[in-house]
């Protein structure tokens, strides 16, 4: 299994690259999933303007990122065959961790 961890400031095309990679890998027949921290943040936190991204909120942001990280670990671990024909090999799984940058974990 392979994990791609996106790194970069906002608006540098991280999600674009993630989606491109996902498209290409799944076209080749691999099992791929994007784990997007921004989407999770929008679901969980209410304030979404720049104030949310100040240093004071670092811990909250880290918690969200951490949650998505562990969800990704669970997905990579799960041995259930991802496709109906049961022929996909779990060792060929690709996960893409699309977070704002590498500010994750304690």
């Amino acid at each position, binding site marked *: *299994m*392979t*994990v*791609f*961890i*996106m*790194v*970069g*400031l*906002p*608006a*540098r*095309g*991280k999600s*674009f*690259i993630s*989606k*491109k*990679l996902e*498209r*290409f*890998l*799944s*076209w*080749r*027949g691999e099992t791929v999933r994007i784990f997007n921290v*921004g989407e999770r943040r*929008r679901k969980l936190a209410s304030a*979404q*303007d*720049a104030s949310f*991204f*100040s*240093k004071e909120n670092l811990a909250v942001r880290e918690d969200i990122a951490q949650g998505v*990280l562990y969800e990704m*670990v669970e997905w*990579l*671990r799960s041995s259930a065959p991802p496709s109906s*024909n049961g*022929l996909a090999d779990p*060792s060929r799984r690709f996960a893409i961790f699309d977070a*704002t*940058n*590498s*500010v*994750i*974990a*304690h």
Partner: protein
Amino acid sequence: MALTPRQTIGCSLGTLLLLVDRMLSVDRLDRAQAVRRRQVVAQTLDRELHGECQVIFVESVCNDTSVLERNLLQKISMSPDYCAMECEAALADLRTRIAQYESQYETLTTHERLSFIKLFDLSSELHLNLIYGSVARLVPYMMGIHIGRRPIWLVRAAHCEDAGDGGTPNSSGEPSESAFPSRRQGSQTVIVPRAAALSEEGLLFAQRLGAFVRARCVEHHVASDATLTQQREAPPATAGAGTADSMRPESTVSSVDAMSESGCVIYTSTLPRAIQTASFVPRLTRPHATSTLNPLDRGVAYGLTEEAFATGMAEDYARWRADLRHTRFPGGESYSDLIARLEPTLIELEQQTSPVLVVSHVSTLQVLSAYFTANSLEEALATSIPHHTVIEFKPSATTMMWERELIHLDDAVPPKSPATPAGGCHARHGPDAAAVIYPATVAMRQAQPEELR
């Protein structure tokens, strides 16, 4: 003792320096933390997945202000965070957000001993560190990633002399064929000689295709020049000497310029009917005829309708149905084999920044379309690839990444002077010339029949 003015200045300068140093060290601490956090993520994944996981960091760096401004505008127009905000307010907010991250941000370096791929300005500059094996095979694809707006046209080789009824588009222009040849009356197979030439109808389509591509290429060049002019007229606040400007000569957009630039990059299979189909199309470079775009080799099931395959070779058919992607047609290829050979061509299509035309066959076009539409292989094989129709894919800012449009060229009035060369290219590469270029192939293959795809 009173301080001399000189000493006062010295003192306040010292205090200032101390302050700046403190600020910088806070900054350094943040940056050090960013680096340390990456190590923690890598270690967490390694621990939780018992060392079975390859961890690759992919960093996107943008120093080109024109690329960055474009990304910012794209982000505020697409991100749910900004849907309720005015454009100006959203831009200001996003810039504040970025500034907050910048203070904590540290770019990847080789000292961190992590595997990484660093992409610069979404162009073809890449830095790699500790990248091996299967991930290294993804590097050519990542080099091809760009944010250009060029269209890609997929076209099935036009109608042939010997195609018979099975290959003729019906009156609605929608043949019902999908993965397999459709059934013909009194026959279980659809076979057309591999070296078949285009029929009169096919040649007419080739001419219409030439006219269509010429018109679309002009549109494309005018549109991209307009975008460039817009960027020049309204330079972003932070822009210095825009890189995009300096890369591009200061040319005024005239129709003459657009015409001279308006060709496309052409890829065809090596079958004469595909080469001929592209022969009226204005080209930027010599067309690439490549066997990677040749039809799927169905082995013993070659030319058979799905029904004939299912009844005649029930066991093989059942095996194929159970795993469409990996089962080889006995004596032939699997779709997985086909995808593997198409991969380098797909990467080339992605890398192009000019409009691209691909002339190929049903099986290959179904597989290529699946990339652009994000369809599963099963869905792709159920998609019809009609004759005499252009399948256009344009990059799109939506989550779909590409928008698709089907353009039938059947109802158009045939161009009056179809063989008029653009820039003199066609004098040498007209449809007749195509047969002259490959005389040996034509002669050798004449005896070998081949299905119509």
